[in-house]
């Protein structure tokens, strides 16, 4: 380390970052970082839903309440829409 590179030297004003700015930078970076996981979770859930529905392609079932109505079971498109809307609320 040279004479003018003391670790205690004063930073030039143009390099100075105030504690407030450092905090704001940390918060923005942290929220950006964690928000990226939303996309990963969504993709995982879409894959799961797709697999479940592809393996059991039932589209209609007898109403579980016991009456004679036929209840439509969720389709792949509907399931995917539900996942999409859960991760991208309006």
């Amino acid at each position, binding site marked *: 380390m040279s*004479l003018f590179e003391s670790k205690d*030297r004063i930073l030039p004003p143009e390099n100075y970052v105030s504690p*407030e700015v450092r905090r704001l930078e940390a918060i923005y970076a*942290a929220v950006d970082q964690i928000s990226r*996981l*939303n996309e*990963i979770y969504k993709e995982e859930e879409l894959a799961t839903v797709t697999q479940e529905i592809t393996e059991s392609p039932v589209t209609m079932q007898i109403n579980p309440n016991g009456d004679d109505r036929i209840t439509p079971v969720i389709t792949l498109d509907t399931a995917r829409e539900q996942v999409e809307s859960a991760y991208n609320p309006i």
Partner: protein
Amino acid sequence: MRIIPSSSIKSIISLVGKQLPVTSRSSLANDTKRYRELIKHEASIGGQIFGPVPHGYTREFFCLDRYTWVWHEEWIDAEGRRQSRMTRYDVRPTGILKAQDGSGYKLVSKEEGRNLIDAAKKYQERVLKEVYNS
């Protein structure tokens, strides 16, 4: 070429080596203190994100750095002893790891992860408004 007298060099050395660092250390200490105060303020706001805090409880939630979120709770138990729980969330590219009171890390569920993402966004919104007026 101008020759700098050795007495001047000595005075420069004394400035660089003694006087300036004292000022610098002092301002660094002030910045560190200020940084901690900001986190403390943020943490108390973060603790309110999850609804009312039970009587006798202290709850803090804050962003430590780009990859780390911390949840801290303190309370007095039925026998009057102070208890605390510290939960640390480490955000990795493929998921969130959680460690409680220094125990080993475990991967958080998707549901808990989504809750944490929501909490982080609410934290940002409130802290920007209430601490940084932006």
